[in-house]
């Protein structure tokens, strides 16, 4: 087990810069999730750590060792792929054994470890099957097994759950969390699914267009998104982001007018999470106004209601039994403490 340290890593493919000057430290035993929209460079970052992509500049350290010049195999890490990458012509047992064979592990020990790993993951009955005869969940278990069996210093996960259906995805998520608890192997996990990031990560790192937007504990990131991008990306349903102008201490957007965090004249973005928007509350500190309902989505446990706010839309997450109809006019209130402010130009948080 070891810590991982990335310093000023830049990657270019041809003229296109995929990662710009990225740095990240992962402590020994930590579970860090890289999250971002597709094309943000998160998988590339994983491949830089693995040694499959060579950065144009920057350093990669695993433990005390600088590994830039090392072969992937010499870095002592294991990776789990989105499409599982099981060898189609080998049985499950052979797939599990392959990395050990390459390390010339003696036959007896190899067989013992294959058996143990298979037991841990509930694969004992499938050892003689070929990947083509397995379900998606089983294949993913085999892929996990192939990573586990080597006892690596570092685990890399490349969107391992995105090919599974929703139910399996939850199961496997729990399985991975359990595995990490047990093994405490330093892990880097890539996903585009923010809820996966929030549930799994000891820390999450939000990536956009080749740069880190924010790195931190999931709840901290959720509670205080550092940029407008993170605010919009983390949390479901997504945060309401209302661009407007602050002038003379007031911020105005549509019918909404409230005290601005600054006296200067400035273009700002107001962020409010939908669950912080309430109906008919009348606290003195709250901002409240009447708005038209434009759309209602009843989801059972919650009801999402959209209001027209000038040319924008304000969404509220209400209780599942809320009775709201399209076209009604409702009094809506926001708690002042739940407001997030971002600069419209730089996207950075104000406070």
């Amino acid at each position, binding site marked *: 087990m070891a810590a991982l340290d990335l310093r000023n890593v830049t990657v270019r493919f041809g003229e296109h810069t995929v990662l710009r000057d990225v740095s990240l430290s992962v402590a020994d035993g930590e579970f860090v999730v890289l999250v971002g929209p597709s094309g943000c460079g998160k998988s590339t970052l994983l*491949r830089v750590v*693995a040694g499959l992509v060579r950065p144009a500049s920057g350093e990669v350290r695993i433990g005390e060792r600088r590994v830039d010049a090392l072969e*992937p*195999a010499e870095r002592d890490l294991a990776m789990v*792929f989105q499409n599982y*990458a099981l060898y189609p012509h080998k049985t499950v047992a052979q797939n599990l054994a*392959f990395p050990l064979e390459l390390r010339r592990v003696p036959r007896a020990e190899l067989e013992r470890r294959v058996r143990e790993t298979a037991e841990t993951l509930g694969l004992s009955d499938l050892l003689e099957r070929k990947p083509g005869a397995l379900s998606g969940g089983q294949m993913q278990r085999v892929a996990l097994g192939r990573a586990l069996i*080597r006892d690596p210093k570092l685990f890399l996960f490349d969107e391992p759950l995105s090919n599974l259906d929703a139910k399996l995805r939850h199961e496997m998520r729990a399985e991975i969390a359990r595995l990490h608890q047990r093994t405490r192997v330093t892990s880097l996990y890539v996903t585009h699914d923010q809820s996966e990031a929030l549930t799994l990560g000891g820390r999450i790192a939000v990536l956009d267009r080749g740069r880190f937007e924010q790195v931190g504990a999931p709840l901290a990131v959720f509670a205080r998104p550092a940029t407008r991008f993170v605010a919009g990306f983390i949390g479901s349903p997504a945060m309401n982001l209302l661009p407007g102008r602050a002038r003379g201490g007031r911020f105005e957007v549509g019918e909404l007018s409230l005290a601005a965090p600054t006296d200067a004249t400035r273009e700002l973005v107001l962020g409010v999470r939908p669950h912080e928007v309430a109906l008919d509350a009348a606290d003195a500190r709250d901002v409240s106004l009447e708005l038209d309902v434009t759309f209602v989505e009843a989801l059972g446990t919650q009801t999402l209601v959209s209001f027209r706010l000038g040319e924008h839309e304000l969404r509220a997450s209400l209780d599942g039994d809320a009775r709201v109809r399209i076209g009604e006019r409702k009094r809506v209130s926001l708690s002042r403490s739940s407001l997030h402010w971002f600069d419209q130009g730089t996207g950075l948080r104000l406070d």
Partner: protein
Amino acid sequence: MSARLFNRSALAVAAVLFALPFAFLLVVSLAPEGRGLEDLSAGLVEPHPENYRLALEKMGGFGRLFANTLFVTVASIVGQCVTCSLAGYAFARIPFRGRDLLFACVLATMMLPEQVTAIPRFLLFREAGLVDTFGPLILPTVLGGAPFFVFLFRQYFLSLPIELDEAARLDGAGHLRIYWSIALPLARPMLATVAIFTFLGTWNDFWTPLIYLFSDENRTLTLALAGFQRSFNVAVEFMLAASAVVLAPCVLVYFVAQKVFLRGVRVAASKH
């Protein structure tokens, strides 16, 4: 319905037209000496299967001819499959500087007519003391002879998921190991396709054996067959009988390997 009928009849006509020359070849090869062309029914009315025996006798030492041809063919197939798949794998999977330039070289050699390089190649083999051995027939194929196959293998490997390679590399496999344990077993259809193409090419080749092989014990089948072509003293019937013997293994190989072959062609066609 009528369109279906039209299609069926069109296909039937095509089948007949494509089979016709074969039928012709067989019928004439069975006709009595000197009469095959005069009277096409002669071979049917009064078949002379001994034409085949006589034709083989005229070729001389059929066993030896067959063994030589088989040896050259098998060696070429093995060499071609190994070298072309190695190169195809490198072009498809390993990033290295100058790759595009080298691959352009592969494509350029596809356009080079054989006759251009014949003389300098011949002198090269003479310097190496390999004239009148099977070396000149086998070596150019073993050493990546057919650029087209390098191209086919590259296309095939490009169609495999890159994650398989990445997984294997993390597992600790080098490129050679990945090629051998992962890529090659998965390329079986393409190996079959290349093997069949090589088989047909080598088996049917006439010119290379002609200029390189002199000794009696080194002759190949097509060389012996060519002895019949345009020669005044051998009757057409014998010539066609000998042709039928030489082409029989090709037909056989195609029938046996048809399925795998089609699968390889499918990959080559769809992953262009």
